[in-house]
């Protein structure tokens, strides 16, 4: 890989300042994605600020909900009693991702920053606007079986590959970040990632140098009725063809509140408020869920090789809702 400077950050403020000071600097946490990308010459930072010594690893009850440190490992997060008990959807989503070995290394903040798995992004001999703005999109007219059906632009048809963020969106989480100037702000999970538009090189709404410090989950009544479904080409260790984070708050046999977030279909976790609206007040049933699923996939714009995602998406939404409602 290209030579780079390695700096071990002593505190969050210094880390944020160091990255802000160098446009080619990046944060390093678990390294499960950025190191691969550096080896492939896709990421070319000249400075890495290692965050792993920072004390942002705590998972604790906060304001009725839970605050999860950005540097808590995925494994520890998924297995934490507070998460398992109150946010089983998040546990399911995390363990649906990667392998045990990777989850042991990967941090929550790093998971949010995971970049797309588009093959053209990975191959520096191929055009890719995300990797090299202006070079074109290889996947648009190429191999796009694993690509987006929603929200893509002619600049980029890549998907956000992660699982955790889909659950976070469904659970109304916010991402707490800290800028180089010390100012903190929160970004709702659903606004953390972006659609590609004309700037697919930007995956998220973070400013350069902004450091994720925590993920905050509000008190949730979804614990009883949620389900994370991931459909993939093999049983484990593969990215989603389609994923669904489904969460219901039930009032007897009726749905009081609903969340339907799809993964693997867009450049960001894809929530369907139409589907959710169609569920509210309705009896939990296959029929209700089928109607919601139809709405969830309405407006999909499949590419040459991924039309299957529309039908698969609908079926996955139904299945996830049925599981969430404990009807299947």
């Amino acid at each position, binding site marked *: 890989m290209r030579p780079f400077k390695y700096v071990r950050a002593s505190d969050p403020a210094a880390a944020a300042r160091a990255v802000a000071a160098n446009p080619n600097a990046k944060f390093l946490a678990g390294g499960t994605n950025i190191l691969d990308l550096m080896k492939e010459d896709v990421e070319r930072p000249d400075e890495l600020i290692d965050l792993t010594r920072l004390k942002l690893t705590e998972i604790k009850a906060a304001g009725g909900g839970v605050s999860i440190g950005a540097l808590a490992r995925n494994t520890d997060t998924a297995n934490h009693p507070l998460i398992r008990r109150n946010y089983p959807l998040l546990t399911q989503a995390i363990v649906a991702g990667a392998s045990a070995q990777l989850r042991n290394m990967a941090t929550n903040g790093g998971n949010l920053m995971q970049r797309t798995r588009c093959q053209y992004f990975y191959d520096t001999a*191929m055009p890719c606007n995300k990797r090299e703005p202006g070079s074109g999109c290889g996947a648009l007219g190429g191999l796009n079986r694993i690509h987006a059906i929603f929200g893509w632009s002619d600049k980029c048809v890549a998907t956000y590959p992660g699982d955790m963020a889909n659950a976070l969106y469904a659970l109304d989480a916010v991402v707490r970040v800290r800028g180089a100037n010390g100012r903190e702000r929160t970004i709702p999970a659903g606004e953390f990632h972006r659609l590609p538009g004309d700037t697919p090189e930007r995956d998220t709404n973070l400013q350069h140098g902004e450091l994720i410090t925590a993920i905050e989950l509000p008190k949730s009544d979804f614990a009883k009725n949620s389900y994370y479904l991931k459909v993939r*080409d093999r049983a484990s260790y*593969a990215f989603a063809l389609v994923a669904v984070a489904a969460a219901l708050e039930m009032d007897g046999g009726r749905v009081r509140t609903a969340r339907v977030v799809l993964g693997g279909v867009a450049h960001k976790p894809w929530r369907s408020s139409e589907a959710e609206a169609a569920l509210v007040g309705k009896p939990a049933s296959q029929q209700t869920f089928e109607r919601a699923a139809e709405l969830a996939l309405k407006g999909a714009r499949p590419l040459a090789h991924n039309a299957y995602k529309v039908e698969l998406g609908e079926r996955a939404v139904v299945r996830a809702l049925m599981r969430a409602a404990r009807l299947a």
Partner: protein
Amino acid sequence: MPRYIGKEMSRVDGVAKVTGRAKYAAEFRAPNLAYGFIVLGAVAKGTIKSIDTGGAERAPGVVRVFTHLNAPRLGPKASHEQSPPRAQEEKDKSFRALQSDRIYFNMQPVALVVAETYEQARYAARLVKVSYNAERHSTDTEAVSERGRFPSQGPPPKPRGNPEAAMKAAPVKVEAEYRIPVEHHNPMEPHAAVAVWQGDRLTVFDKSQEVYNVRKHLASSFNVPEENVHVVSPYVGGAFGSSLRPNYYPALTAMAAREIKRPVKVVYTRTQMYTGHGYRPHTIQKIALGAEASGKLTAMIHEAVHNTSTFEEFSDNTTGFTRQVYACPNLYAPLKITDTDLNTPTWMRAPGAVSGMFALECAMDELAYALKIDPLELRLINYAETDPESGRPFSSKALRECYRLGAEKFGWKQRKMEPRSMRDGRLLVGWGTATGIWGAFQMPATARITFRADGTAHVASATSDIGPGTYTVVTMIAAEYLGLRPEQVKFELGDTDLPRAPAQGGSWTTASVGSAVHGAALAVAAKLLALANREASSPLKGAAAADVEMLDGRLRLKADASKSVSVADVMRRNHLAEITETFEARPSAERRKYATMAHGAQFVEVKVDPDLGTVRVARVIEVTACGKIINPKASHSQEIGGVVWGIGMALQEATEIDHRYGRIMNPNLQHYHVPVNADVHEVETLFVEEDDSVVNPLGVKGMGELGMVGIPAAIANAVFHATGRRVRELPITPDKLL
């Protein structure tokens, strides 16, 4: 009673492997070693217009940057204009790197950066700037399948009987087309070479399935005598055919080492493996089967076409086994190849057989449904009692017993014929079967045994152990016939200083090398007998070599164990510290009177989620008849591995090419899927042993390839049974079942 043969034995190299003491190619060191990193090209066809190595040359630690402009020409005809050579008289047309400005395939090596460290070389490799005069390329086999031609090797295929007329007349027919994408071997260990020159003598540590072939390739590359080249490959971390040919990196590494006068190491990255060796070709097959209402086959037409490169012919024998599986008087099974601007395909586990049998065994299932005959019954109706191709008897064939045992273990009788008729809750359950077949090959092989008076033995043969357990099985055979304990036997392989052995491929190693070791052990015993009988008092007087055996330090009469001599005493009295015997085993003349094949029957249960299209291979029973089993432990392991490979081929594996660029787009293990543990459920492997005195003295047949041959078809047939969907294009991914 044998002491070791037929009994489970753990791998003799197991501890070395798990403790890291076993040295793989990339782990060899040499003083002053430099590291090479390969730069791959970015177009599929054309020429290199310019290549700027300045940035790389100035980078820290860089020793030399090689391109076609400064790399010496390799090969017997150092003058040829372009590489690979295309002259007819030139036998070795294998691709050699950096020989001209011509680009034959995308991700072809265009430069080698050599530096003081690996990281320096890898970094500098990014700084090499190449521009191309691209030409129109053609990488899509589908688009050029009509241009298929018969391979120039071997006679053109001849029909048996009159297949066309028989097909026309057949009361029941099925006809279908099947497709297999390009697939890659993906062994765990990346290919690597360390090259060290001393004058005009070369030593190369390599990952190889045939060290002698690499030696020949290197000798001809550098115009040095073969004796000057020493190739060493003691351990191989999986190869599956990807190291049967020399590949381009050993010569490239040796070239760099010679030029910079330092040892050089080159290791492929995972991505470089996708064009650094061959692959299973993209294969299109048309099958037509005609049968009587009774199920009796009357016509089989199996036409296959697969791709090769523009500079080398490779043919996979895709339709070869079709001629020998079922009794059928009328048959035509031609194979054609067609040029693509890709590198050359090669043998990949169960080459040809698994591709051809996927198509044939799916077609047999389709025929079973057309006839409304149980698929297993259909196979029994068409059971070949003698080889349908040659008319010769089989040296042994326990396939019928495989079918019977497998069906019983699996519970096949409970199968309901109708698709979608079996369920497990919401999941659709499907049961499928298929036949496996592979040749019981034997190749000439030589082994040397040095038997020492202290009761230990050194056994040597330049074969390879790519994972099946050759170290162990040879140790067992030597121990058995020298009457020693396995720990008294040391077996060495993978080195051109050792007696010549064939490639480890074709599942012929135990039959070939094992027979040589067996022969050498008997020669040791014969020598001892001759020595013993020089003495007047020998109790073995009058005994022939065939009458005696060695056991626990004694040479004794088989018929009367009380008649024996101490081996150590005989050697001491003859002033011998050791006896060395070298034996070359060749296939017997007797074999030619027979068809020598190994067979198997596979039974698979899948569970399919009807909504999501996901397939789980819930249960596999694989029954194999491949002669005698020497080491059941490693043998079961081979068959289980074959099943897992079959699962990968059926459900997951595909090398994806963007034909606009002629470039492989998933050359890594995140995008190219192979099975993970969670994909593998109940797998039971069984053997029906055959007593076969014809195939070779040990009565063994290969099994490494056989174990996967029928699996993809059995899975596809099970998926049909579960869903009613006939997927004829692999892999069967969820999108194909919605």
